[in-house]
C-alpha cells in the first residue's frame, strides 16, 4: 500500500506539472495561468482550475482540455522544437499513433514515439533548399523561355503579316482569273456542244475520243499520222515549248514513221491518255479556234483549272491565317511563357487543343483543364486536369486515372516557377 502511495504521488506531481503546459501554444498560455478557476475561452463557463486537462470535457469549446482527448472539438498543440509546430485534433492524443514529431501527443499510451523533430527539420530544410535551387534555376530558365516566347511571338506576328500579304495578292489574282473564266464560259455558251466522248478517261483540254484525237493529229487528213504531224501537235508535259525531236516522234509512233488509226488506238492513244510524259499541245490562241469546238472546250477547262488552283491557294492561306490567329489568341501567360509548349506533345494524345486555365485566382496558370476529349467507353468524354509545378525540366511527371476517363497529370516546367513562392520559402518558419 505504501509503495502504491509513492507511485501515485510521483504521478500526481508529474500530472500537475505537465497539465499546465501540455497541448498549448505560447500565445494561449495567458488563458491557462494557474488560478482558482478557469474560464472557458469562449466565455461560456467557469470551472475549477483542477478541471483543466483532467481528461473530462467541461467547456463546450473544448478549451479546458488542450492536453487530452476528452473534448470532441479540441485540438492539441505540438511544439515540435526543431521542426514546425502545429495543431492536431485532440482525438489523436494518446491514440497509440505518434503524430507530433516531439512525441508530446503520446504521453500516456503504449506507443513508443521517438522525438523525430530534428531529423524532420533537417530533411525539410534540405528539401526546401533543394526547392530553392530548383526555383532559382527554374526562374532563370523561365526567363529564357519568356525571351524565346517573345521572339516566337514576334515571329508568328511577322508570319501572320506575310500571310496576310500573300492573301491579298492571291485575291487580286483570283479576281483576274474569275473574269477570265467568265469569259471562257461565255465563249462556250456561244458554241455548239461537241459530240460526247465515249471514253470516260478525259485528258486535259483535249477531245477525248480515239478517232477525234487521231483526226486532230492527222493534220493532212490522209488517214495516218506522220513524224511531222506528231512534232506539230504533241509536246512533252514538262516542256510544252520544245518541239519533239524526230527520234522522239518516231519512238512515239512505235519506231515507225507513220501510224494508222488501229495502231494508234493501241499505242499512242494509251500514252496520251495516261498523260504522264506527253500530251497534245495546247492550242490556245492557235488559228482556227473558232472553227474547232474541242479546242474551245480545252481553253475553258484550262481557265477553270487555273481558277481552282488560285482559289485553293487562297483558301489555304486564309486557313493558315485563321489558324495562326487562333493560336495567337490563346492565353500563353502574361509573358507568353507558355508559348513554347504550343504543339509540343507530352503524350497528351487525347487532346489536340489547348485546355482552359483553371488554377485558383492566386495561381491561375497552375492548373489546366481539358474537357470533351475522346469519348469514354461508358459514355461521356475524357477529361484531364494538368497541374503545373515548378521544375528545371519540362516534362510530364505522372499520369493518374482516379476515376474512369478522368485523368490527372502532373506537369513540371520552369515556366510554372513563381517568384512569390520563393519569397514564401524564405520566410518559412523553421
Amino acid at each position: 500500500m505504501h509503495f502504491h502511495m509513492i507511485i501515485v504521488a510521483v504521478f500526481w506531481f508529474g500530472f500537475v506539472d505537465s497539465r499546465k503546459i501540455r497541448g498549448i501554444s505560447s500565445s494561449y498560455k495567458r488563458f491557462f495561468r494557474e488560478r482558482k478557476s478557469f474560464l472557458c475561452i469562449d466565455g461560456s463557463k467557469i470551472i475549477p482550475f483542477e478541471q483543466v486537462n483532467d481528461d473530462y470535457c467541461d467547456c463546450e469549446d473544448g478549451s479546458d482540455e488542450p492536453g487530452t482527448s476528452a473534448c470532441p472539438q479540441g485540438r492539441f498543440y505540438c511544439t515540435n522544437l526543431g521542426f514546425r509546430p502545429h495543431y492536431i485534433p485532440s482525438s489523436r492524443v494518446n491514440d497509440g499513433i505518434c503524430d507530433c514529431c516531439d512525441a508530446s501527443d503520446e504521453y500516456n499510451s503504449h506507443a513508443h514515439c521517438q522525438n523525430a523533430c530534428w531529423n524532420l527539420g533537417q530533411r525539410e530544410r534540405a528539401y526546401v533548399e533543394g526547392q530553392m535551387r530548383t526555383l532559382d534555376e527554374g526562374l532563370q530558365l523561365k526567363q529564357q523561355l519568356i525571351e524565346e516566347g517573345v521572339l516566337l511571338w514576334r515571329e508568328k506576328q511577322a508570319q501572320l503579316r506575310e500571310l496576310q500579304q500573300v492573301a491579298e495578292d492571291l485575291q487580286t489574282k483570283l479576281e483576274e482569273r474569275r473574269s477570265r473564266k467568265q469569259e471562257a464560259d461565255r465563249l462556250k455558251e456561244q458554241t455548239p456542244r461537241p459530240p460526247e466522248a465515249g471514253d470516260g478517261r478525259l485528258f486535259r483540254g483535249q477531245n477525248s475520243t480515239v478517232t477525234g484525237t487521231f483526226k486532230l493529229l492527222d493534220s493532212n487528213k490522209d488517214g495516218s499520222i506522220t513524224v511531222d504531224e506528231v512534232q506539230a501537235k504533241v509536246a512533252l508535259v514538262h516542256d510544252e515549248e520544245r518541239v519533239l525531236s524526230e527520234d522522239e516522234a518516231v519512238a512515239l509512233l512505235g519506231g515507225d514513221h507513220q501510224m494508222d488509226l488501229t495502231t494508234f488506238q493501241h499505242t499512242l492513244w494509251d500514252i496520251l491518255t495516261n498523260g504522264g510524259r506527253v500530251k497534245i499541245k495546247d492550242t490556245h490562241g492557235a488559228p482556227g479556234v473558232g472553227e474547232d469546238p474541242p479546242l474551245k472546250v480545252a481553253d475553258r477547262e484550262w481557265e477553270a483549272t487555273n481558277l481552282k488552283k488560285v482559289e485553293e491557294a487562297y483558301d489555304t492561306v486564309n486557313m493558315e491565317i485563321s489558324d495562326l490567329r487562333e493560336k495567337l489568341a490563346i492565353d500563353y501567360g502574361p509573358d507568353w511563357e507558355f508559348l513554347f509548349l504550343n504543339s509540343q506533345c507530352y503524350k497528351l494524345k487525347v487532346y489536340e487543343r489547348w485546355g482552359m486555365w483553371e488554377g485558383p485566382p492566386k495561381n491561375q496558370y497552375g492548373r489546366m483543364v481539358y474537357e470533351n476529349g475522346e469519348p469514354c467507353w461508358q459514355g461521356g468524354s475524357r477529361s484531364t486536369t494538368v497541374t503545373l509545378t515548378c521544375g528545371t525540366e519540362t516534362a510530364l511527371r505522372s499520369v493518374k486515372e482516379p476515376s474512369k476517363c478522368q485523368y490527372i497529370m502532373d506537369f513540371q516546367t520552369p515556366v510554372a516557377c513563381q517568384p512569390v513562392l520563393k519569397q514564401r520559402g524564405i520566410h518559412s518558419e523553421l
Partner: protein
Amino acid sequence: MGGVKRSIIKMATFTGSMAPVLVLWLAMSLSGTWAVDKGNFKTCDQSAFCKRQRALKPGDSPYRALLETMELTNTRLTLQLINDNNKVRLLLELYRLQGNMTRVKINELKPLKPRFEVPDVLITEPSTEPLSLLSQDENGVVLSLGTESQRVIISARPFRLDIMEGPEVLMSLNSRGLLAFEHLRMRKDTQAEPEGEKKEEADPANQAEKEEEEKVDGMWEETFKSHSDSKPNGPSAISLDFSLPGVEHVYGIPEHADTLRLKTTDNGDPYRLYNLDVFQYELYNPMALYGAVPVMLAHKAQRTTGIFWLNAAETWVDISSNTAGKTVFGKMLDYVQGSSETPQTDVRWISESGIIDVFIMLGPTPKDVFSQYASLTGTQSFPPLAAVGYHQCRWNYNDQEDVASVDAGFDEHDIPYDYIWLDIEHTDGKRYFTWDSHKFASPKEMLQALEDKKRKMVAIVDPHIKVDSNYKIHNEIRNKGFYIKNKDGGDYEGWCWPGSAGYPDFTRPDMRAWWASMFAYDQYEGTAENLYTWNDMNEPSVFNGPEVTMHKDAVHGAWEHRDVHNLYGLYVQMATAEGQIQRSGGVERPFVLTRAFFAGSQRYGAVWTGDNAAEWDHLKVSIPMCLSLGLVGISFCGADVGGFFKSPSTELLVRWYQTGAYQPFFRAHAHLDTPRREPWLFGPENTALIRDVVRQRYTLLPYWYQQFYHAYRTGEPIMRPLWVEYPQDPATFALDDEFLIGKDLLVHPVTEEGARGVTAYLPGKDQVWFDVHTFQKHNGAQSLYIPVTMSSIPVFQRGGSIIPRKMRVRRSSSCMTHDPYTLYVALNLQRTAEGELYIDDGHTFNYEKKEFIHRRLSFAKNMLSSVNLATDAEFSTGSWIERIVILGASKPSKVTLKTADGQESQLEFDFDASMSVLTLRKPGVNAGLDWNVMLQ
C-alpha cells in the same frame, strides 16, 4: 462488383475476336431502361421442373401412408408412403428435436441411386427428444410431441401431417395434396430400343411414367437460350405444401430485392432461390439473387413459427393466402378451430433435386424461432470489432499511392475508418492471391503503413481461377484434380474476369483445406495480419454459363452441380475464413465478406446485397433486404453505400451514409465507371454531414459490438423488424422503412429525395422513446411526424434501456480501445432501465476462453449499478466510465458513487431541466468493476 457489365470491359481488352458480339451486347445494355435483362434468367415456366410441379393443382394427394410399415423408436418414426398413381414408395422419417422443433424427411424408399442430402449446413446432428404414440387406427396415427400438449397427426389416406397444440393447428403438411416426388428412373433411349423389349419391362409404374413423359418435356434434357442441360439423371424434383392457419404474415427466404413481408405469388412467379450473379437487379420482384436461405418465418400475434427447407438445389416458393382473396383450404377444416374466415397462408416449396428435409420450428416467440434455427445452423460469427467500423471500398483503388492518399484524406478530414478495400484490379491479371507488380509493388509496406494508423485492408479473392499454366494456384488445383468437372469428365471451364477460368470444387473437404492453407503468410505473398478477404462472384458467376452461372450437369464428385449449387458460395467463404483463422494459428478472428450465401453462412462472416445502384429505391430496399437476412440468422449485412452502379446525387449519397451507418455492415463501394466519391469530394457541408454520421457510428461501436456478441450467443438478428420486439402489435408487422438495432435503438432513415419529414412508428404502449440527438421524449404506440433537414437521421433510444457509447471518436476503432465510456440511461415510465456492457480484446478468439467483461447495467430506485453477468469470465480493461447521461431524470440534490471497495464519493452533475437530462460528471470508475451510483 458487377456481373455482365464488368465482363464486357475486361473481355474487350483481351479478346479482339469477340468485339462485334461485345459491341452488340453493349448496345443492348445501354439502350432502353436501366435494369436487369430478365431474358437472361428463367421464369418458372422456363425452368422445366418448376413448370411441371406448378402444373399440379391442389387436390387429393396421390400419396397414402402405409401405417403397417410404421416403426417408432425412441427418437424417430418411420413410415412408408406410396404414390397410388405409380406405386413408387417413399420413406417418411419424423423426428422430434430438442427446442420445440419437428423434422420431417421424405426420400425414396429405394432410389435408383442415392439422392443428395445437404451436408455441412447443420452444425451437429440435431438432438432428438422422445416421441410417443397417443392413438392409432386405420385412418391415422396421433403422436405426442412431448411438451405443451403438442401432437402430430398423420393421416393415412390421403397422406397429410398436422401439427397441433391443444385444439389449434399450427401447421399442416400436404394438406393441399401437393407432395410430389419425382423418383429416379432409368433413362430410356426410345430411339435405339425396339418396341418389343420395351413392352416386356412395362409395369404399371413405367406405363404411367411414359405417359407422363410424353406430356411433359424437359425431363431428360432442357435448353435455355443457347445452353443445354444434359440431365443424365432425368427428373428428380420434389415439392411439398405447408398450410399456416391464422397466419397472414410470412417473411424470410432471402435473397430477394423485395419487401420484408413476403407477397402472395398467385399472379406471378414464385420466389426463386438460386444463387445468381444478376446484373443490375430489379426491385420488388421474386427473382433470385446472389444468395439463398430456404427459411421462412410465419408470424401471427400469438405465435411465430418457421420452416427450414434444407435443400441446396434450385428452389421455388409459392405463397398464397385466403385473405388475399384466395380460397384454398375450403373443405378440410376438421382440425381448424373457428370458421372458414380464419386467415391462412399456404406455402409450397419446389426443389429440383435432393430430398425433402424440413425443420419445422414451432416458436412460439420470434426469439424462440431464432434460437431454434441457431441450434441447427449456428449463429452469427463474432467479428473483429474493427469490422463493425466503417469500410471504404471502390472498384478500384488503383495503386499504393492511391491507397495512401485516400488514407490520408480520411485523416485530413477527420473521418474515421477501419478498412480500405481492394477490388479485382489489384491482382496480377485477375490471378487471385497475387499482386499487380507495378501498381502494388510492395504490399507489405502498404499494409504496414495502414497498420501504423491502426487500420486494415481487405483484398478480393474470387473462386474462379485463371487457366494459365504459369499460375501456381491454377497448376496446383489442376494437378490435385480439385477443379469441378464438366459432364464429360474434363475440368470445367467458364468465362469470368481472368478470361477462361476453372472453378475449384469447394464441396470437397480436401480442396477447402488446401484453399485455406493458401492464406498462410508464406503462401499468399505480400500479406500481413491486417489483410482480410472478400469473396465475390461465388454464386458461382460464369459469364458464359446458363443464367450467368455454372451448368447444372457439371460434376462435383458423386454429385451434380444441380444438387449443390446454392451451397457453393457458403463453402467458398467457409474455406476462406478457415484460412484466415489458420494463418494466425487459430488466434485471430477472421473477417470475410461474401456475396453468395446459404443457410449457415452466418458462421463465416459478413454478407452484402451485391451490385445495387445509386437510386433512391435501392437505398430503401436495403432495409427489407437486410432485415430478411437477419431473420434467417445472417446479421452481418449491409448494402453498398452510395450504390454500386451509377453515380449518386450528393443528397442520395449523404442519406445513404446516414442509413448505412445504422446498418450492421457499413461499407461504401462504387463501380469502376463512376466518378470518385470519397466523403470529402462534395464540398465542406456534405463532408461535414458524412463525417458526422460516420462519427455517430463510431460512438455507438460499444453498443454495436455488444449486439454482435449477443447475435453470436443467441442467433437473434441485430438489425431487426419491429414485430420481433412487438409481436402482438399488428401495426409493426409490415413495417420495413424503419428497424431496430438490438431492442433499444429504433432507426427510421430518411430515404426519400427532398424529404422534409418522415413519419416513424414508435411501438409499445406505455413505452417512451428518446430522440438520441435532442433527448426529446416521445410516447410509444404512435406514428410520429419528424421534420427533417439534411443532417437529420431519426434515431430513438427506448425508455428502459442503457446504451454505452465511446464519445472520443478517433481515426479507427482500434485507436479507441482504451477510451472511456459514456452511459446513456433512458428511463421508462417506471423510472427503470437496463443495459449491458461487453468488452474483450476485440480481435482474438480469447472470448471463447472466457476472456471478456460482460456486465449488467441497471437503473432502479434511483440507483444505477453495474454487476457482473459472467462471473466465470475474466478480462481487464483500461476503459473507465467517463460520464453518465440519464434521460427522463429529475434533478437530484446529491449523487453518490460507491465503488467495489466500499468507498463513496460525490459526483458533480449538471441538470438540463428543459429536456430532463441529468449528466453525471466523471465517475472515473473502471468499466470492468462493480459500482453503483445513487441519486438523492
